């Protein structure tokens, strides 16, 4: 049990001094790497180390996500500062014998920014990391998330100790306001202000709630933080509780996030065992404990009032605001709901000061934002960049550009609630206000890169299919509106639409936007309106039924090699060897497999 701030500091010093390993082997054990056998790799290294009697010299650490998921499993060796990518089970032997035993680096397993370049030894040489600044993800990939000792060694719980020692909640809230931190869950409401409102609400009981119900398709930053650094969220929640005068915290987490939930439970127990959570924290007389509530699979529960109803054991349906949760929340008491990424920033802000945080980013958007980078991009993964970084920098410097020599068409940001950034606006700085100006929104952090082949109507349909499915059904505009919108889009892509459908779709979108009860419905038409604004011609091609949906073959160019015929998944290409091939257009699903297979560019795209 740690009873004072001084004892915490002493423990930290002991932990730093005790670290006497010659080498540390850090292996990513995030969900993505585990699906590529990272677990087995860890086991094999542990076995090897034990076999050679090197337990005192080499430590094998299972860390959280490094972010570079497209290159996983990733392995880092310190203090040599070497990173290996795409490590396979068969490589364990090589790395162990060459690097760990003999100190010879294995260049074949290093990352190359470009095929013709020399391999990059460490993260510093990898373009993926060069423009990143990791604050919320500072410990992900650095520490073992299942060990509180690792967290404490990296200044963990120091912010909490300082806050309790100063014993001045008003000053704490002022620091939060001065830092300019805004909610990272999508809305972007100033965090300090939210805390102040909840503090001002008079009540015998208040609640601190962590929203870990991350549900956007393609977004996984909250999962990575909880998997890689659960203690930072716990520490921030305790600080939050102290600031608003609450002694109960709740974490609402998606049931699908099994690994994150398990690590969270481990971390909570460790914090309790050390006296950092529970009664009389660090001898300050302040009590605070945290309970985990499992979600049961409903996207709308990311909306705070719906989330609160779900925790109370009801259907997760939203209610109108006001009253805001800061006045009437969980069990009817004032509640402060913050998102995982917002929390992960807080201990670092308090350790380094509001001024430091304010100096990062742009005027009205301070600090950094984590994005899940996916779609038609070379480097898929999790990136954290200062606010104000442009899309260009993320796509070309960090993301490595578009694969296959293709051109970019647009970026989708904010998931089912967001919009598209067109190719000519890629120099837009990413911050709350600039994004709103170009008709998109920050959202929770999904960023999908789309190349020139992307069909924007299909993209809208994809998001609408998601929202109409996830609409909770409480209010009519969202329940019926999104369904009808999806049907119109289906009609269009099935080539059964009319020009009138476009008018209908636009009117309906605006009605759903203005009449829906909660954020889900209000933002559901965004993907449609934003793509209609910039790519209206694509909608018209469908509406006027002039869109060509099948591939065809240029008879002048075809050499009859049969390659296209062999790859066609629906067998719609006919032709004999050395004769011109023909595509039956009614059967073609426009998958593009033949286009990629043709050696002489004879396939004509729709």
């Amino acid at each position, binding site marked *: 049990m740690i009873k004072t701030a001084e004892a915490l500091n002493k423990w930290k010093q002991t932990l730093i001094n005790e670290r006497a390993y010659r080498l540390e082997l850090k292996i990513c054990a995030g969900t993505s790497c585990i*699906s590529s056998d990272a677990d087995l790799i860890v086991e094999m290294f542990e076995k090897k180390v034990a076999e050679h009697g090197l337990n005192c010299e080499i430590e094998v650490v299972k860390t959280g996500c490094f972010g570079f998921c497209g290159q996983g499993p990733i392995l880092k060796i310190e203090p040599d500062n070497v990173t290996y990518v795409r490590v396979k089970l068969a490589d364990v032997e090589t790395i162990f014998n060459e690097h760990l035993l003999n100190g010879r680096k294995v260049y074949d397993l290093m990352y190359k920014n470009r095929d013709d370049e020399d391999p990059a030894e460490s993260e510093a040489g990898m373009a993926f990391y060069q423009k990143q600044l990791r604050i919320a993800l500072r410990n992900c990939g650095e520490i073992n998330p299942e060990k509180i000792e690792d967290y404490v060694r990296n200044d963990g719980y120091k912010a909490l100790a300082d806050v309790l020692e100063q014993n001045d909640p008003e000053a704490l809230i002022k620091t939060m306001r001065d830092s300019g931190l805004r909610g990272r869950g999508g809305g972007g409401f100033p965090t300090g202000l939210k805390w102040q409102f909840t503090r001002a609400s008079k009540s015998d009981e208040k609640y601190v709630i962590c929203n870990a119900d991350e549900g956007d398709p393609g977004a996984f930053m909250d999962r990575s933080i909880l998997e890689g650094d659960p203690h930072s969220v716990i520490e921030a929640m305790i600080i939050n509780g102290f600031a608003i005068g609450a002694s109960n915290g709740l974490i609402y987490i998606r049931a699908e996030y099994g690994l994150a939930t398990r690590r969270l439970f481990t971390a909570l127990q460790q914090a309790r065992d050390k006296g950092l959570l529970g009664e009389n924290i660090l001898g300050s007389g302040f009590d605070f404990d945290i309970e985990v509530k499992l*979600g049961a*699979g409903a996207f709308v529960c990311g909306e705070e009032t719906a989330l609160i109803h779900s925790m109370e054991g009801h259907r997760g349906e939203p209610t109108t605001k006001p009253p805001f949760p800061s006045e009437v929340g969980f069990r009817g008491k004032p509640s402060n709901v913050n998102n995982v990424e917002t929390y992960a920033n807080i201990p670092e802000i308090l350790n380094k000061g509001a001024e430091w945080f304010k100096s990062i980013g742009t005027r009205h958007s301070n600090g950094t934002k984590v994005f899940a980078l996916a779609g038609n991009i070379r480097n898929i993964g999790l990136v954290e960049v200062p606010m104000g970084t442009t899309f260009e920098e993320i796509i070309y410097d960090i993301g490595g550009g578009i694969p296959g020599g293709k051109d970019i068409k647009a970026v989708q940001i904010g998931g089912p609630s967001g919009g598209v950034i067109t190719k000519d606006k890629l120099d837009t700085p990413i911050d709350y206000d600039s994004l709103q100006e170009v008709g998109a929104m920050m959202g929770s952090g999904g960023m999908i890169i789309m190349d020139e082949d992307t069909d924007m109507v299909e993209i809208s349909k994809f998001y609408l299919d998601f929202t109409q499915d996830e609409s909770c059904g409480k209010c009519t505009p969202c329940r019926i509106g999104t369904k009808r919108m999806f049907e119109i889009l289906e009609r269009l892509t099935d080539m059964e639409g009319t020009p009138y459908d476009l008018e209908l779709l636009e009117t309906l979108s605006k009605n759903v936007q203005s009449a829906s009860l909660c954020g889900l419905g209000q933002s559901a038409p965004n993907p449609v309106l934003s793509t209609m604004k910039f790519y209206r011609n694509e909608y018209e091609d469908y509406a006027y039924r002039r869109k060509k949906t099948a591939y065809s073959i240029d008879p002048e160019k075809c050499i009859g090699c049969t390659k296209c015929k062999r790859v066609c998944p629906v067998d719609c290409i006919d032709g004999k060897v050395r004769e011109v091939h023909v595509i039956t257009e009614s059967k073609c699903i426009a*998958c593009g*497999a033949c286009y990629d297979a043709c050696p002489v560019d004879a396939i004509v795209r729709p």
Partner: protein
Amino acid sequence: MKETVTDIKDLDKELLGKLDEHIATLDLTRKEESLIPTLYKAQELFGYLPHNLQWHIARQLDLPSAHVNGVVTFYSFFSEEPMGKYTISVCMGTACFVKGADKVLDKILKLTGTQPNEMSEDGLFTVKDVRCIGACGLAPVLTINEKVYGNVTPDDMDEIIESYRKGAADDKDS
């Protein structure tokens, strides 16, 4: 319409006893908050939540059965239909489809002798076709419970399905 089973006598007594034991440990002063954890436990024990089980839970927690049914049907995690021990989710996103996910699905259905979203007769498998699971680099991709299988072909399925059959048989023996 499907006939609704409402008689609690049809439920397994032993499992029901375990569920009641679990309910006894809950703080029932906030009975509504106990509902979702109870449903989790019940689904873990029974594999799914038939109507008679929902009635039983409603009585035990002293809640209207309409409330219980409302919650069960709201969340996608809860199922009113029996589920196999292993849920096979085959991704039918565009990337997977063009790489032959439909053929993989057909093969799985043949091997397990089921239709999509129905449990196989031996109670081992439920096969689902799902929307993009975001692992397009591994297309065609499927998940069995939490394990991800990437770049699968119809021929791979014989071995994979057999390994689960064998695993289930070993579990039973031990």
